[in-house]
């Protein structure tokens, strides 16, 4: 090496190579690491820890109870009902969002002049925040000023007590009575919250599925047509199989959204009536910030965390081959 290209020796040249490399990388990583430490990892450990304590009646003292609180909260009938409500909410929102999103994406994928206008309209609800979607559905579902019952009346549909009838969600008693009522006594409060959520989801799902449709090669349809497949057969045998990874992706993303849903419940039903729309996250909020049962809320938060870990792992698995290890620099 000649003198001209030789770089000046820096102060850390004497250090071993791994140490030197770490010192170079540290300033780039430190901001993220500090923030993750304070707002992600510390809270996770703290939640587990808080779950070991109950506070006394006046919230002046924390009493250590070990795993007793975990056993008590996770084994309680309230927790079981929260889980039923949360899972039902996931079912009520994910399935319709995907069916509607797929339908809209397929009709918006036709080659027609001006189709861009419809694509834009169909995906526009993505712009709606949870607060905007909830207030927008308040104008439809509000007990006195909502207009949906009137509109449904034109089509001969009887009026519903949208936000104020919790149906099976209001039932007390064993899980079996709940399951029985689930099919016979609709939970209109939870359906109301779901309607706002579906509306909000449809924009995103249409975009996702439209992106999927555009990856289906035209010659697949071509050869299906040559084989004499009609429109319906083309949908079942070409579109749906090609779309299945995208639909699975949307299912998991939608499920994660539903377990994180909060604003629509807070604005439309406040978890009621009689806890019929109280999901796991809403329960964490009321226990932690209204009833000040920090320990119980923390136990529920850990349960929510574990559910989300399972869902996110599925999502990572799904995208792993294509995304996560693609393009590793060697």
């Amino acid at each position: 090496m000649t003198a001209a290209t030789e770089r000046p020796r820096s102060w850390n040249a004497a250090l071993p190579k791994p140490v030197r490399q770490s010192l170079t990388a540290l300033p780039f990583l430190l901001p993220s690491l500090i923030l993750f430490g304070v707002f992600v990892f510390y809270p996770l450990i703290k939640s587990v820890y808080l779950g070991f304590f109950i506070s006394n009646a006046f919230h002046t003292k924390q009493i250590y109870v070990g795993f007793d609180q975990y056993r008590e909260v996770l084994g309680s009938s309230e927790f079981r009902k929260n889980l039923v409500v949360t899972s039902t909410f996931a079912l009520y929102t994910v399935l319709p969002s995907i069916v509607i999103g797929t339908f809209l994406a397929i009709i918006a994928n036709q080659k027609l002049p001006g189709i861009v206008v419809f694509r834009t309209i169909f995906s526009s609800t993505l712009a709606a925040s949870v607060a905007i979607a909830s207030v927008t559905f308040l104008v439809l579902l509000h007990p006195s000023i909502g207009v949906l019952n009137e509109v449904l009346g034109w089509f001969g549909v009887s009026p519903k007590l949208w936000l104020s009838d919790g149906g099976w969600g209001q039932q007390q008693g064993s899980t079996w009575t709940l399951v029985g009522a689930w099919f016979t006594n609709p939970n209109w409060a939870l359906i109301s919250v779901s309607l706002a959520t579906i509306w909000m989801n449809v924009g995103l799902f249409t975009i996702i599925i439209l992106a999927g449709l555009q990856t289906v090669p035209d010659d697949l349809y071509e050869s299906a047509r040559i084989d004499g497949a009609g429109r319906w057969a083309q949908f079942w045998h070409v579109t749906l199989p090609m779309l299945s990874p995208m639909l699975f992706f949307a299912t998991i993303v939608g499920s994660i959204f539903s377990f994180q849903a909060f604003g629509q419940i807070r604005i439309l039903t406040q978890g009621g009536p009689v806890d019929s729309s109280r999901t796991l996250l809403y329960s964490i909020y009321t226990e932690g910030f209204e009833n000040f049962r920090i320990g119980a809320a923390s136990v529920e938060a850990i349960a929510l965390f574990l559910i989300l870990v399972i869902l996110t792992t599925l999502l990572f698995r799904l995208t792993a081959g294509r995304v996560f290890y693609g393009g590793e620099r060697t």
Partner: protein
Amino acid sequence: MTGRWARRAPAYALLLLCAVLLMFPLYVLVVDGLHPIDEFLNDPPPSLWPSDPQWENFFPKGGAGGSGSSLSRYLVNSLIVSVVITIGQLATSATAAYAFAFLRFPGRNVLFMVFLGTMMVPLEVAIIPNFQTIQWLGWTDTYQGLVAPFLATGFGTFLLRQHFLTIPAELRDAAEMDGYGHFRFLVFIVLPLAGGALATLGIFAFLQAWNQYLWPLLVTNDPEMRTVQIGIATDATQNLNKINVAFASTFLAFLPMLVLVIGFQRFLVRGLFGGSVKG
């Protein structure tokens, strides 16, 4: 020619019907925003046609909730919070992604997994300890309290790293010859080459920050510090006497996001799939 349009008519009719159904809630929102208040107080439900439109509902002087805070104040708060979060995420993600893409150091892969792992811990899971932290710092009702938990993201680091990896390593060698340190190389060479990925992350960060509901609800009590989401929800649920103005404000708050989402749709699609689909 007419034959072709006649064949297309059913397709257009279906598209139009779907568009009308999907937009119906927003239509009612706007109509309700235009109604005078006695439409709600006297003989509800309000009619579906604005027979006596009150345009000034969309340009209110005082706050809709009567709290003294106005929509413009909510909007300014949201704008400050969202811009700071967006810039913060871009900065922390770009530097971390640079380390993962261009630097070699012991434990790099493990640390990258740790960054990805943070995606499994959304804020919703950690609201109680995080609220306690913000309270302990004395940051309730402050902008720092509203933004601090969102300044770094595993998703952003991941997204930018994917893009940085497509930049040839030879470029780094050449820059080193020219005497560029790592930081200057990142700012002057890498970032200009990663414009699309930065735009994707930026739009995601902004949209998420703007649309937040749970965290601002927890850390603000002062009406002056409310973000627009909390503001419109509070106004629409607490005071029936000005509910028409609250509905008008809700629609106004929706418009800027609509423009943003339509304008940046292709970046959004790209980001959704972690950069694996060219939208």
